C-alpha cells in the first residue's frame, strides 16, 4: 500500500531541523537502546536519536529535506518496534518542572540538615566543656545555614498551607509550616540570648524527611502517568482521509469536523460521523456492549471505536450532534462528575483532627506553666517545644509512604492508577459491578472451538489468516504461533483467502468458498468460517470469549465478601449464559447509559460503595458515577479517561489484585496513623514537662519517620506478584494490541 502518511501535527520544526517524540513499544532489554539508536542514526539525515529507557520514549532530530517523519516510524517498525508519535501534554511538562523543583528543595534541605547536624552534634557532645562563645558561634552558624535553606526548601509546604488557609481550610501543611517557622523563630531568639538549646537541626531535618516523601510520591505518580501516556499513544488510530484526489493516512487526533474518510473492512472507525456511501456491518461492542453486528447504509450515524466488518465505507466526520449517543453520554458524564461529592482523603481527615488538638495542647502548656509560676519566656519556649515535637513528621509521612509503595506494587500487578486517592476508595469497596462485553469477555472475538480442532490444521488456518484484512481472519490470526504469512496468498473480496501450502491449495473463508456445506449458525454475535487444505476441512466458530480467569477471579472476589453484579448493554440472551457460567445471580441486560447510572445510584442509596469495571463508551457515565472505577486498557478513550485506574493484559486478575492491595494498603495507612498517635502520646508529655531537648526532638523525629516508612514497605513484601504475571513495566509498553 503506497499511501502517504501525514504526521506533520507531531513534528516540531526549528531552522531546517525537525524534532519528534515517540512512544516506543516492545523495549525489553539493554540491547534495544543500541539497536534503536544505532538503527536510526544510520538513516540519512538523522542528526540525533536518543531513547529514554525509563519511560520508553524516543526523541529524534533530523534534517527535514532529507527524511520524512513517516520514514522514521517505518524504520522503527523494520527494527521490530511499534512506535507512535505523541505530543507531550502540557500537564506532563508541568509535572516534570514541579519534580525538578521538589528535588532542588530536597537537595538544599539535605545539605542544610547534614551541615547543621554536624554543628549540633558538636554542641550536644561538648556542651559541658564548650565555652559559651564557641556554642554561640555554632548556633549563629546554624542559623546562617538554616534560615535561607528553610526559606527555599520550605516553599512547597508554605505555599500549600497558605492556599489552604486562604480558603479557610486546614491541611497537613499548616501545622508543618507553623512548626518549622516557630522552631526557627524561637531558636533565633534563644541564640541571641546565649541560651543552651536551639532547634535549627530539627526544623531542617523535618523539611528533609518530608521532602523525601513528597518527591517519591511525585516520582511514582509521574511514572504511572508516563506509562499511561505511552499506552494511549500506541493505541492511537490512523484514519484514511480524502485530500483532493488522493487518500492520505493521518493520525485520528488530526481529524476535523467535515473531513471525508475512507474506512476499509477490518479498520476501526476513527471518529464519530455519518456514512456517505457504501454498505457494511459494524461491530459496536466497544460502544454499546452489543455483540451482534449492525448493518449500516448511507446516512447512518457511526461512532468512533466501532469496527467496520464487511464493506468499504466513506464517511464524513461530524461533531457530536444533539440526540446522538455520544451527546447523551457526555451530558450524563457532566452530571455524574458534578454530583461526585468531593472525597475527603484520609490524610486530610487526620489533619483536621490533629491540628486543633496540637495547637490547643501548646496553648494549654503556656497557661499551665504560667499558672505554675514559670516566667513568660520559659512558658513560651516549652510550648514551642511541644509544637516542634508534635510536628507531624510521622503523621505526614504515614500515608504518602504507603501510597508510594502501594502504587508501585499495583503498577507491577498491571494496574495503572489515574487518580491519587483511588487506593483509599478502592479499599472501601463492598460491591463490584462488571460490564460484560470487553470486560468479562476479551475485547476482540476469538476462535471459540479452538480446543476441539486438530492443532496442525488450526495453525495452518491461522497462518493463512495473517494474509487477510477481514476481522474474522484477524480473530483467527491470534491463535497463530509462527507469525510469517504464506507466500503468494490471494484475497478474494467477500469470499476468503487462498494460497498453495505444501503443494496443495488451502482456502479460508466462507464455508461455500472452501467447498463445505455451511452449518446453520443462528447464534447472534457468533460467526462461522471454514478452512480446507488437501482434502481436510474444519469449521471455526468465532465469537466473544470470556477472559481465561474470569470465573476464578469472580469466585475470589465473592470469597472476600464482595457482591458481584453484571450490568450489560447487550441483549439478555447473550448475558444469561455468561452470568450462569460465572455463578452471578444478580445480572441485568439491555441497559442504556442512563439505566446503568440509575442502578448504581440505587446501590449507593443503600449505602454501598460500588466499584464499576467497564470498557464501553456506554459505561463512561457509570464509571464516573461509581465510588471508584477500573477499566481495561482496551477501553474507549473517554471511558478510560474517567476510570480511576486502568488494568493491562488479557486477564481479569488485576481487578482482584487492585482490591486486595488497596485493602492491605489502607490497613497499613491506619496502622501508621496509630503509630504516629502512639509516638505523640509518648513524646508530648515529655515536651510539656520541658524535657524536650534538641537531641530528644531529633531522635524522636527520625525514629518515628523511619518506623512508618518501614511499615509501609510491608505492602510490597506481602503482595509480591507471583512469577508469570509481573513486570507490568514491560507489559505497559509491549502488550498494546
Amino acid at each position: 500500500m503506497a499511501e502517504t502518511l501525514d504526521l506533520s501535527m507531531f513534528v516540531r520544526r526549528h531552522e531546517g531541523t525537525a524534532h519528534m517524540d515517540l512512544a516506543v513499544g516492545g523495549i525489553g532489554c539493554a540491547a534495544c537502546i543500541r539497536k534503536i539508536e544505532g538503527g536510526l542514526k544510520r538513516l540519512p539525515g538523522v542528526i540525533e536519536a536518543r531513547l529514554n529507557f525509563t519511560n520508553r520514549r524516543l526523541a529524534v532530530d533530523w534534517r527535514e529535506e532529507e527524511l520524512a517523519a513517516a520514514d522514521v516510524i517505518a524504520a522503527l517498525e523494520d527494527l521490530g518496534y511499534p512506535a507512535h508519535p505523541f505530543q507531550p501534554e502540557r500537564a506532563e511538562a508541568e509535572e516534570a518542572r514541579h519534580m525538578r523543583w521538589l528535588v532542588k528543595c530536597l537537595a538544599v534541605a539535605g545539605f542544610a540538615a547534614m551541615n547543621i547536624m554536624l554543628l549540633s552534634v558538636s554542641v550536644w557532645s561538648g556542651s559541658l566543656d564548650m565555652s559559651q562563645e564557641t556554642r554561640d558561634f555554632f548556633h549563629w552558624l546554624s542559623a546562617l545555614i538554616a534560615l535561607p535553606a528553610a526559606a527555599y526548601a520550605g516553599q512547597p509546604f508554605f505555599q500549600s498551607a497558605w492556599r489552604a488557609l486562604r480558603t479557610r481550610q486546614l491541611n497537613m501543611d499548616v501545622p508543618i509550616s507553623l512548626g518549622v517557622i516557630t522552631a526557627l523563630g524561637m531558636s533565633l531568639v534563644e541564640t541571641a540570648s546565649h541560651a543552651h538549646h536551639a532547634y535549627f537541626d530539627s526544623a531542617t531535618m523535618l523539611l528533609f524527611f518530608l521532602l523525601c516523601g513528597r518527591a517519591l510520591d511525585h516520582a511514582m505518580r509521574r511514572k504511572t502517568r508516563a506509562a499511561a501516556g505511552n499506552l494511549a499513544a500506541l493505541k492511537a488510530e490512523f484514519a484514511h482521509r480524502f485530500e483532493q484526489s488522493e487518500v492520505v493516512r493521518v493520525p485520528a487526533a488530526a481529524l476535523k469536523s467535515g473531513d471525508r474518510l475512507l474506512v476499509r473492512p477490518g479498520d476501526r472507525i476513527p471518529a464519530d460521523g455519518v456514512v456517505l456511501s457504501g454498505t457494511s456491518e459494524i461491530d459496536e461492542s466497544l460502544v454499546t456492549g452489543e455483540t451482534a453486528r449492525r448493518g449500516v447504509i448511507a446516512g447512518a450515524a457511526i461512532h468512533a471505536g466501532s469496527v467496520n466488518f464487511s464493506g468499504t465505507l466513506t464517511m464524513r466526520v461530524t461533531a457530536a450532534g444533539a440526540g446522538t449517543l455520544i451527546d447523551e453520554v457526555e451530558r450524563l458524564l457532566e452530571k455524574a462528575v458534578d454530583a461526585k461529592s468531593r472525597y475527603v482523603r484520609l490524610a486530610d481527615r487526620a489533619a483536621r483532627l490533629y491540628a486543633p488538638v496540637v495547637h490547643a495542647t501548646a496553648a494549654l502548656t503556656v497557661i499551665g506553666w504560667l499558672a505554675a509560676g514559670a516566667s513568660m519566656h520559659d512558658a513560651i519556649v516549652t510550648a514551642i517545644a511541644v509544637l516542634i515535637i508534635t510536628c507531624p513528621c510521622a503523621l505526614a509521612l504515614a500515608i504518602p509512604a504507603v501510597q508510594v509503595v502501594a502504587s508501585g506494587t499495583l503498577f507491577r500487578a498491571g494496574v495503572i492508577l489515574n487518580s491519587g486517592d483511588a487506593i483509599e476508595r478502592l479499599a472501601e469497596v463492598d460491591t463490584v459491578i462488571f460490564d460484560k462485553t470487553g470486560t468479562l469477555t476479551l475485547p476482540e472475538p476469538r476462535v471459540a472451538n479452538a480446543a476441539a480442532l486438530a492443532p496442525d490444521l488450526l495453525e495452518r488456518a491461522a497462518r493463512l489468516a495473517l494474509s487477510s484484512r477481514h476481522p474474522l481472519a484477524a480473530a483467527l490470526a491470534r491463535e497463530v504461533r509462527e507469525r510469517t504469512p504464506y507466500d503468494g496468498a490471494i484475497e478474494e473480496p467477500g469470499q476468503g483467502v487462498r494460497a498453495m501450502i505444501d503443494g496443495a491449495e488451502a482456502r479460508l473463508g466462507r464455508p461455500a468458498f472452501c467447498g463445505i456445506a455451511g452449518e446453520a449458525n443462528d447464534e447472534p454475535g457468533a460467526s462461522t468460517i471454514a478452512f480446507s487444505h488437501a482434502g481436510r476441512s474444519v469449521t471455526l466458530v468465532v465469537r466473544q470469549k470470556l477472559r481465561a480467569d474470569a470465573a476464578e477471579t469472580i469466585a475470589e472476589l465473592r470469597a472476600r465478601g464482595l457482591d458481584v453484579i453484571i450490568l450489560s448493554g447487550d441483549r439478555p440472551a447473550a448475558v444469561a449464559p455468561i452470568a450462569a457460567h460465572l455463578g452471578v445471580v444478580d445480572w441485568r441486560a439491555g441497559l442504556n447509559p442512563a439505566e446503568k447510572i440509575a442502578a448504581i445510584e440505587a446501590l449507593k442509596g443503600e449505602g454501598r460503595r460500588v466499584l464499576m469495571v467497564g470498557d464501553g463508551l456506554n459505561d463512561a457515565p457509570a464509571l464516573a458515577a461509581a465510588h471508584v472505577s477500573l477499566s481495561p486498557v482496551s477501553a474507549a478513550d473517554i471511558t478510560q479517561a474517567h476510570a480511576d485506574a486502568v488494568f493491562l493484559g488479557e486477564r481479569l486478575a488485576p481487578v482482584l489484585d487492585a482490591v486486595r492491595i488497596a485493602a492491605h494498603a489502607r490497613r497499613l495507612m491506619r496502622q501508621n496513623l496509630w503509630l504516629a498517635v502512639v509516638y505523640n502520646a509518648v513524646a508530648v508529655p515529655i515536651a510539656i514537662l520541658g524535657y524536650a531537648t534538641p537531641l530528644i526532638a531529633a531522635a524522636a523525629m527520625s525514629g518515628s519517620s523511619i518506623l512508618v516508612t518501614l511499615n509501609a514497605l510491608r505492602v510490597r513484601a506481602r503482595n509480591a506478584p507471583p512469577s508469570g504475571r509481573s513486570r507490568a513495566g514491560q507489559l505497559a509498553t509491549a502488550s498494546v494490541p
Partner: protein
Amino acid sequence: MNVLVYLVPMALALGLTGLAAFLWSLRNGQYEDMDGAALRVLQDDDVSMERD
C-alpha cells in the same frame, strides 16, 4: 580552638560544592533516564555489535 576558624568554613565549602555539583547534574538532565544510564554503561561503543 583557633583551628575552627578555618576548619568550619572548609567543611561548609565542601558541603556547598557537593550541593552545587548536584544541582548542576540535575540541570544537566542526568536524572531523566535512570534505568537507561545503568544499561548504557555496559555498551561497548567502540566494538561493532552488528552480528544479527
